[in-house]
């Protein structure tokens, strides 16, 4: 099996790996939409979706009712509905860009997974921890930001191609918001990489190196960056909410004043592609937050993964690392939903004022403070 895989041409191997990653990400995005409904129901004190029942599965003794109670069949029903609904295209849209926009939404959010490590395994030959990653490039975090920044075109194009007022306003708001918060987001990770990269000829922006630097020995070595740099983590998290268009920053959508925002004119499968893209974006964003500030696949602060899995078989160790990492990521996805049902939405001018007048100066001051602090620590 493994020999057969290794004998394939390199691009076939890459395609298989990529398809596996996408095949994982899309069901997670689907499960997120169910989780969103269940979490919102739980927070509001109601049972949530629990009625749908599949003809075969629902009558299995014990398991069937549990699945029904969890609303799993609603997910399947939703998925089937989106695929089989009639494909209505409003007459006044710009057809080419109207069809292009959902694709532009989905492709960048699935591409970012290439450079995000999602676990680590112990390589017995070199006695070191190796990342589970599709492409271990040196520019790691910059590649995530670069590809992620392309997703703004989906919202602009959808808003513009719909050729009607509310989607247009949604698209314009989206582009302004995403560009504004990208600045704070990029600035907030600078201290992390200043700390990770010791003075010397080599420097890296890879996310694996960030996790490695959070799994060293000693008080500062094993400390997760969320404790070492709480302000960076806070700015990053706020910007992440804005970048993924989640409440309280969901200006492009804002049902209350823009009907449905940029996707008002979209229906059925094209609409669901937007949502898969949003959840995929959210998953990757949470994963990057966990890697940068929460120690990646290390189970606890000051408890690195490497000694735990050194004696175990490779597949079990890798699975454990990935499990710790995904557990933290899923907690952050839950946090996204928790915030959504807790905080009210900002008004648009408040979003802009927060971004430019509060968050950006704070991020700049934060970079200066940590640059000075790290310089002082390095000197002594």
């Amino acid at each position, binding site marked *: 099996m493994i020999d057969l895989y290794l004998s394939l041409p390199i*691009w076939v191997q890459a395609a298989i790996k990529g398809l596996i990653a996408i095949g994982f990400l899309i069901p997670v995005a689907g499960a997120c939409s169910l989780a969103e409904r269940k979490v919102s129901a739980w927070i509001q004190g109601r049972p949530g979706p629990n009625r749908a029942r599949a003809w075969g599965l629902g009558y299995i003794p014990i398991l069937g009712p549990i699945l029904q109670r969890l609303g799993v069949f609603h997910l399947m029903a939703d998925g089937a509905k989106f695929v089989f609904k009639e494909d209505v295209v409003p007459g006044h849209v710009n057809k080419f*860009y109207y069809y292009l926009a959902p694709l532009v939404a989905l492709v960048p959010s699935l591409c970012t997974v290439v450079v995000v490590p999602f676990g680590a395994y112990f390589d017995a030959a070199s006695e070191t921890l190796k990342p589970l990653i599709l492409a271990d*490039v*040196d*520019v790691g975090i*910059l*590649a995530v*930001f*670069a*590809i992620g*920044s*392309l997703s*703004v*075109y989906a919202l*602009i194009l959808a808003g*513009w191609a719909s050729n009607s007022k509310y989607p*247009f306003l949604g*698209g*314009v708001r989206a*582009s*302004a918001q*995403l*560009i504004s918060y*990208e600045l704070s987001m990029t600035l907030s990770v600078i201290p992390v990489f200043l700390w990770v990269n010791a003075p010397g*000829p*080599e*420097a*890296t*922006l890879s996310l694996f190196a960030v996790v490695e630097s959070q799994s060293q020995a000693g008080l500062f070595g094993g400390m997760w960056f969320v404790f070492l740099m709480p302000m960076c983590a806070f700015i990053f998290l706020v910007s992440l909410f804005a970048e993924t268009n989640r409440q309280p920053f969901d200006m492009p959508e804002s049902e209350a004043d823009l009907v449905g925002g940029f996707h008002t004119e979209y229906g059925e499968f094209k609409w669901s592609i937007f949502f898969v893209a949003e959840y995929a974006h959210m998953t990757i964003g949470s994963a990057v937050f966990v890697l940068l500030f929460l120690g990646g696949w290390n189970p606890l602060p000051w408890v690195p993964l490497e000694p735990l899995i050194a004696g175990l078989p490779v597949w079990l160790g890798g699975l454990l690392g990935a499990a710790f990492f995904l557990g933290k990521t899923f907690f952050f996805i839950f946090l996204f939903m928790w915030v959504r049902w807790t905080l009210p939405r900002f008004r648009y001018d408040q979003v802009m004022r927060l971004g430019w007048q509060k968050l950006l100066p704070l991020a700049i001051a934060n970079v200066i403070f940590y640059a000075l602090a790290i310089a002082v620590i390095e000197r002594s």
Partner: protein
Amino acid sequence: MADILFYIFAAMTIGSAVAVVINPNAVNSALAFLVGLLGVSGLFVLLDSFLLAVLMILVYAGAVVALFLFIIMLLDMQGGERKPFSRPTAVAGFIGAALLAVCATSLLQGIGALETAEAGSAIGVGANLKHYADQLFTTYLLPVQVVGFLLLIAMLGVIVLSKKFEGLEDIK
């Protein structure tokens, strides 16, 4: 493999560059420009300059073209009527043409003047982050500052040209 990719990316870059110029619709032009930038960054990847490729997408494709599109859509440009030439426009046009002539002649004179180096001996400035930053803050510090200043002037120019100063006596 790399050769085929090079031809694909090169065709993508040139094709979309032509499309930017000849397309009558401003939105189409901006998106063709975006495709061209993606092609250029693909070419950078083939040159092993991952950092430059990523910066190309992050800065130009991710932010600059998004702003272009934002402005095109906000102003809803249809290519309105052109105003007759005023004197400052004529002077600016003359200076621009003169600069172009100077550039063209120096380019023509300079053909073959530079030594051709082996591809392997070239220093990959854009390949390594540290090397790139080092060059940026030592050798190329002045050019970077000058270009930054030029951008600042352009920005001020846009404000002066587009903002209406009537009724704002204190600014005058």
